[in-house]
C-alpha cells in the first residue's frame, strides 16, 4: 500500500515538475510575445511557428555556453546559489492542490503532492528560504553589483514577507485552517471565493507576491539600468538559466497560490449543477485552475509593461509604511466583521 502510494506520488511529482518547467519555459516566450503585443511589435517569431520553439533554443544555448566562475568568487557558494534558488522555487508547489480526486476503480488519486495540514506555513517557510539562493549567489560572486543586488533583494523580500504574512492571517481568520487543500475546498462554487471576503487582503497579497518574485515594478535587485545584472551579474550558462527558471517558476507558483487562496482554485461556477461525474469535474477543475493561473501570469506580464520601476526608498516606504499598517487594519476589520456576523446574525 505504502509503496503504491509513494509510486503514485512520484509520478505526480514528476508530472507536475514537468508541467512547471514547461510553463516556466514558455513563460519566457509569453513574456516576449506579450511585450511585443503591448509595444505593437511581433516579438520572437523565427524559431517555429510564432516562435514556438524559441524557449527550446534558449535552453539549448544555456547548456552549450561556457561557464565562468570569477577568480575572486567563493566557488562552492557560487554554485550552490542557483541550485538553492531552483530547489526552493520547485518545492513550494508541493502543497498546492491542482485538482480534486480522480477515481479509477479502487484507487483514488489526490491531485496534490503532499496533503499536509500546515500548507500555508509550509509555503511561508519555503518563500523565506528563497532569499538564500539570491544572497548566496550575490555574495559569492565577489562583485559589487552582485552584492548590492543581493542585499537589495534580501531586504526587499524580507520587508514584503511581513506584509505577505499579515495578509494571509486575515485569510486564515476567514478560513480557519492552515491546509491549502481545505481552503480551496471551502471555496466551492463562485460566491464562496475568498476574494469577495478579502479584497483588501488580496491586493496586499498580490503586491507582496510581486515583490517576492522580484517582478517589475519591484525588480530592483536586478535592475539593469543601475546594477548591470544585479545578483546574477557574474553568472553564465545554465547557472544563469537556473536563476531565470526559478524566477519564472516563482511567478507560476505565486499565480497558483493566488488562484488557490483567493480565486477558488479548481472551483468554477455551477460545478455541481452540471450533472457531470466526479472525474470529469476534476478534470475540468484542473483546466479551470490552470486557466486562472495563466490569467495571473498574464497579469504579471501586463503589469511589467504598465508600471515603471519603483525607486528603492519608495519600495521600502510602500512595504513598511503602507502595506503593513494596511494589513493590520485588514486583520482588525476582518476580525470585527466576522465576530459581529457570528454574534448577531
Amino acid at each position: 500500500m505504502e509503496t503504491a502510494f509513494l509510486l503514485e506520488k512520484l509520478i505526480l511529482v514528476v508530472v507536475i515538475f514537468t508541467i512547471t518547467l514547461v510553463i516556466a519555459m514558455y513563460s519566457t516566450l509569453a513574456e516576449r510575445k506579450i511585450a511585443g503585443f503591448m509595444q505593437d511589435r511581433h516579438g520572437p517569431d523565427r524559431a517555429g511557428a510564432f516562435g514556438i520553439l524559441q524557449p527550446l533554443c534558449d535552453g539549448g544555448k544555456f547548456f552549450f555556453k561556457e561557464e565562468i566562475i570569477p577568480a575572486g568568487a567563493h566557488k562552492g557558494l557560487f554554485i550552490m546559489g542557483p541550485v538553492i534558488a531552483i530547489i526552493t522555487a520547485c518545492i513550494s508547489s508541493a502543497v498546492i492542490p491542482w485538482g480534486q480526486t480522480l477515481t479509477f476503480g479502487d484507487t483514488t488519486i489526490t491531485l496534490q503532492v503532499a496533503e499536509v495540514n500546515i500548507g500555508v506555513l509550509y509555503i511561508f517557510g519555503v518563500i523565506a528560504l528563497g532569499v538564500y539562493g539570491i544572497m548566496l549567489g550575490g555574495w559569492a560572486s565577489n562583485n559589487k553589483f552582485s552584492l548590492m543586488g543581493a542585499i537589495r533583494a534580501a531586504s526587499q523580500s524580507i520587508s514584503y514577507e511581513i506584509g505577505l504574512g499579515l495578509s494571509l492571517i486575515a485569510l486564515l481568520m476567514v478560513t480557519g485552517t492552515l491546509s491549502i487543500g481545505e481552503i480551496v475546498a471551502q471555496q466551492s462554487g463562485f460566491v464562496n471565493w475568498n476574494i469577495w471576503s478579502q479584497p483588501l487582503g488580496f491586493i496586499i497579497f498580490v503586491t507582496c507576491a510581486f515583490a517576492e518574485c522580484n517582478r517589475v515594478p519591484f525588480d530592483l535587485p536586478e535592475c539593469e539600468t543601475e546594477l548591470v545584472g544585479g545578483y546574477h551579474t557574474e553568472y553564465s550558462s545554465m547557472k544563469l538559466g537556473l536563476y531565470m527558471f526559478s524566477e519564472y517558476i516563482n511567478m507560476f507558483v505565486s499565480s497558483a497560490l493566488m488562484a488557490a487562496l483567493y480565486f477558488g482554485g479548481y472551483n468554477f461556477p455551477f460545478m455541481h449543477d452540471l450533472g457531470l461525474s466526479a472525474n470529469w469535474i476534476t478534470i475540468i477543475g484542473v483546466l479551470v485552475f490552470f486557466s486562472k493561473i495563466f490569467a495571473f501570469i498574464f497579469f504579471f506580464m501586463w503589469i511589467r509593461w504598465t508600471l515603471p520601476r519603483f525607486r528603492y526608498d519608495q519600495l521600502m516606504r510602500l512595504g513598511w509604511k503602507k502595506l503593513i499598517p494596511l494589513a493590520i487594519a485588514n486583520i482588525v476589520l476582518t476580525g470585527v466583521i466576522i465576530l459581529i456576523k457570528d454574534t448577531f446574525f
Partner: protein
Amino acid sequence: MENTPFDYVPILIQLAVAAGFGITTIIGTHLLGPKVRNANKLTSFESGVEVIGNARQPFSIKYFLVAILFVIFDIEVIFMYPWAVNFREFGWEGLVQMFVFMGLLLLGFIYILKKKALDWE
C-alpha cells in the same frame, strides 16, 4: 485531519526531484560547455573598468536595520497564526487580547517610523 510524518514524504520526493534537476543541469553544462579561460575573463565585472578593492565591503546600516526589524516582526506574525486559525473559538475576548498585542506591536512600529529607522534618504 490527523497528520503523520508520512504525509511529508512526498515533499521529500519533490525535493529530491528538484535537487536532481538542478544538480544535473549544472553538471551537464560543466561537461558540455567550452572551456577557454584567461585571466581577464575571470576578473569580476565592473562595467569594463579596472576592479578596485574588494567587493565585500561594509554597506549601509539601513539594510541591517531592516533585517533586524524583519526578524522581530516576523516572529510576531508567527504568533498570530495559531490565533488566526482558531480565532472563532476565542471569540471577542481573544480578539481583544490579540488587539492588545497588535496595539503594542503597532506602538513599537510607530516608534520605529518616528525614529526614521525606515527612511532612505
